[in-house]
């Protein structure tokens, strides 16, 4: 046995040995021996509940640490580069030789994109998954944007941290007589207001050819239209939209406003892209009224937006959790204290009934073994700041006074003659001194217990005549209190020699209340006394 205890306590002993002995007085956490703590099942439930509550409150802080919240910052764009990229991928339902792709900017330059810059492939017109230009896509959060930008990276790219430049996928569908034209590529343009347009030959720019009106069909499917570095998986408003033309002369105008955006997700590098908002307008016209075509008119915003997904640091998380746990426990303990005090005030301080479930140990046999508990109101006796349960379930312990030592049941019991308790004739003489001074222990008491030192008790209790029961320790609540036999009837003992034994310091047991001031005498003390005892 001794060896086991040595091993078990070795770690704690090591901990003990870290701190030199005289330092022990700096211990700021008062620990009470468990005898001074009263525990109840109801408060056990409360503790579990408080733990669950604290954990739920911590979840919020843990979520903030892991996922964070979006923080938006605006500033005037500091990027002084003169050029930016436009990524285009769209299919027009006309053969490639009939359309002309150009860009005009605010400086007055016209870029001829039909020859170089944008590739044009004959293909089949297929709407595919595109939808009509819908409401703007929902705003991307920083983590979503960064995740989408990385979707197209393969395994080795992530492993070797390669920033692979995505290229627009080549055309796969080359029918022999293509009826549609896919215009795709990345072009570098000046960072000024500009107009990228697809027009038909003969209607628009001066040209030697003229497209037959029957062959003009400006239906188009836009697969990709974005600014800045090419991230195919970031969804832009114009992606996967289509328009079907019913008239030959129609002008589709898209007005775009571009905002440079930087997404910063937690624990990743900043991602610089551009966002844009688009409105569109379709105009059907007569032959010479205007220029038919598809027009993308865009201009740039001087404000740049930074979407930063901010998280708390680990130390902040620790501070928060510690604060939450501490606060919840302290608040709950005060709440309990206040509520019990309030209940005590409201229902009167005579006795408090706390409903507790308890196995009915009085009945023996099968019932006691298999029978469930009963819920009954137990009279709780206040001892110090704790509670002790009234011992005898059978005793009609509903009278006043017996539960509380501050009351005068003792005086009743000490009272001579009228009390039916006083069965023993020998009660007489030795009681006399006690009747006058009920609090003092009787000289004839033969109980071996000696009073404990007064330091053990928080508050002075009136002395019950201590010598009633064989020494037994102060019981904690919940213990089955029916113990043993009635105490021997000692001549000269006060009336509750007949009373059930147990560790009810009210009756005076081994704890040995020291002699104290006499209990208060209540006038009604005599009335309830008849019911108290059997």
């Amino acid at each position, binding site marked *: 046995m001794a060896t086991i205890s040595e091993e078990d306590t070795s770690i704690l002993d090591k901990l003990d040995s870290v*701190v030199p002995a005289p330092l022990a007085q700096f211990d700021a956490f008062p620990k009470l021996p468990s005898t001074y703590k009263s525990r109840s099942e109801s408060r056990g439930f409360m503790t579990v509940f408080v733990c669950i509550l604290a954990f739920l409150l911590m979840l919020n802080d843990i979520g903030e640490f892991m996922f964070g919240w979006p923080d938006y910052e605006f*500033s005037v764009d500091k990027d002084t580069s003169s050029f930016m990229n436009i990524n285009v991928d769209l299919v027009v339902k006309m053969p490639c030789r009939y359309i002309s792709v150009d860009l005009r900017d605010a400086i007055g330059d016209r870029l001829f994109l039909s020859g170089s*810059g944008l590739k044009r492939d004959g293909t089949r017109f297929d709407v595919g998954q595109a939808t009509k230009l819908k409401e703007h896509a929902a705003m991307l959060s920083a983590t979503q944007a960064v995740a989408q930008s990385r979707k197209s990276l393969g395994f080795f790219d992530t492993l070797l941290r390669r920033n692979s430049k995505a290229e627009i996928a080549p055309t796969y569908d080359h029918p022999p007589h293509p009826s549609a034209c896919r215009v795709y590529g990345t072009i570098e343009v000046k960072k000024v207001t500009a107009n990228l347009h697809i027009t038909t030959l003969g209607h628009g720019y001066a040209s030697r050819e003229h497209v037959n009106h029957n062959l003009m069909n400006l239906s188009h499917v836009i697969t990709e239209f974005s600014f800045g570095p090419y991230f195919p998986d970031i969804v832009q408003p114009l992606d996967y939209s289509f328009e079907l033309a019913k008239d030959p002369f129609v002008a589709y105008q898209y007005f775009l406003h571009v905002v440079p955006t930087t997404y910063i997700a937690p624990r990743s590098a900043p991602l610089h892209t551009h966002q844009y908002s688009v409105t569109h307008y379709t105009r059907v016209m007569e032959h010479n009224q205007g220029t038919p075509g598809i027009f993308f008119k865009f201009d740039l915003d001087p404000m740049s937006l930074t979407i930063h997904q901010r998280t708390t640091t680990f130390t902040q998380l620790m501070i928060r959790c510690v*604060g939450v746990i501490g606060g919840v426990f302290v608040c709950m303990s005060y709440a309990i204290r206040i509520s019990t005090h309030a209940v005590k005030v409201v229902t009167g301080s005579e006795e408090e009934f706390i409903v507790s479930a308890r196995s009915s140990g009085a009945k023996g046999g099968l019932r006691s073994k298999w029978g469930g508990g009963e819920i009954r109101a137990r009279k709780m006796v206040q001892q110090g700041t704790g509670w002790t349960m009234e011992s005898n379930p059978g005793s009609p312990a509903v009278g006043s006074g017996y539960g509380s030592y501050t009351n005068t049941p003792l005086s009743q019991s000490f009272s001579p003659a009228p009390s039916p308790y006083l069965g023993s004739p020998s009660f007489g003489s030795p009681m006399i001194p006690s009747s006058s001074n009920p609090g003092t222990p009787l000289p004839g008491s033969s109980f071996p217990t000696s009073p404990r030192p007064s330091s053990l008790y928080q508050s002075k209790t009136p002395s019950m005549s201590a010598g009633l029961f064989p020494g037994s320790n102060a019981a904690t609540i919940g213990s089955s209190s029916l113990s043993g036999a009635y105490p021997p009837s000692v001549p000269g003992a006060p009336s509750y020699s007949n009373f059930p034994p147990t560790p009810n310091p009210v009756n005076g047991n081994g704890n040995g209340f020291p002699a104290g001031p006499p209990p208060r005498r209540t006038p009604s003390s005599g009335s309830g006394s008849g019911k108290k005892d059997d």
Partner: protein
Amino acid sequence: MAKGFLANLKGVDAFGKTTDDVKIKTRTGAFLTLVSAAIILSFTLMEFIDYRRIYTDTSLLVDRSRGEKLSMRMNVTFPRVPCYLVSVDVMDISGETQRDITHSIRKARLDSSGKEIRGSRSTSLKNEVEKYTEDQSADYCGSCYGGLEPANGCCNTCEEVRTAYINKGWSFSNPDSIEQCKKEGWADKLKEQANEGCNVVGRVRVNKVAGNIHLSPGRSFRSSSRDVYELVPYLRDDGSKHDYSHTIHELTFESQHPLSVLFGLLLISAASLYYFTSLDDDDYNFRKSRVTKEMRKRLGLDDPLKGTTRTTNKPRYMYQYFLKVVSTHFRTIDGQLLKSHQYSATHFERDIAEGGQGDTPQGVYLQHGVSGVPGVFFNFEISPILVVHTDTRQSFAHFVTSTCAIIGGVLTVASLFDSMLFATTRALKKH
């Protein structure tokens, strides 16, 4: 014991005290106490640092100012263009044009090494000319050589003849045949100043709409509602190469409320002057502008074009800057509001000698729609958004709350941990 009121209060005491003889003190408890004291100290220190740190909050509003005039303050040096070949013009989309601004612009002549030539502050050769014409007899009336005559019908100086020619729509190409110019030695002066540079400093006042300010050679004039630039003196081969390489030392935008200008001029009353000057941009107030400058530097919002230098050796080269101006307000910690402007800039340059076609850097064929004039062009437009940068700090109450939370939390958690340890020790010792 206190009687009466206080006695009743005793029951409310939430801090029950444990008497000393009941407390059990252990060494692990002391160890935990010291550890928690250390943790509390470090956390409180971090909270204190957070409390003292200044955060900058940015918010966007719509700019609701009305009637303000924007003025662009600039300081540009052209090392290889003499001052008489630099003219400052403004055009905006409301149609207002200001040609050859001289009243708020000072052009200082620089010698070929960049040092300022003392004593010369004029745009043209006026100083010597004025001295010269004082020597003339009173009723000398020079011919205007066919140009548009001024009101008094006389062109007494070379400059007046030149103006007459420009107003007629002719270019002033041959000063040697003009009598007034020969007398003034204009051609000689041209040769003398051919190697100089020019530093243009001053303020140009514009409407708060999209427009452009350009510094280009030669005088500009309107002829049949088009602006024509007289480039002959610039392009003439006078023995030295001019080009519009430049260094921008400063380029900022400020706004001034016109009523403050009006009241400033009329000096109607100190109170109204004070009120209306408070509508101005605070860059006019030198004390406030110092605070603004310091705050901008801290936030990294300095003007993007400050200190840019572009050089070329082609005479027919055009630089274009596209500026987008955004109103900005700064609010300091002590609640002071400072108004200012910021801008974003992109630049482009073009060799006009190339002609109407070219290639982009990517290789795409390009056609210029505008023929282009050599010089430096600042195209600006105004943004409707107003940016407010606010300096804030956590309040003291927040700091106190955090400290209490830290202390309470750490102590409670430690005491829970300690009592668990204690119970475990007890349980183990029992067996």
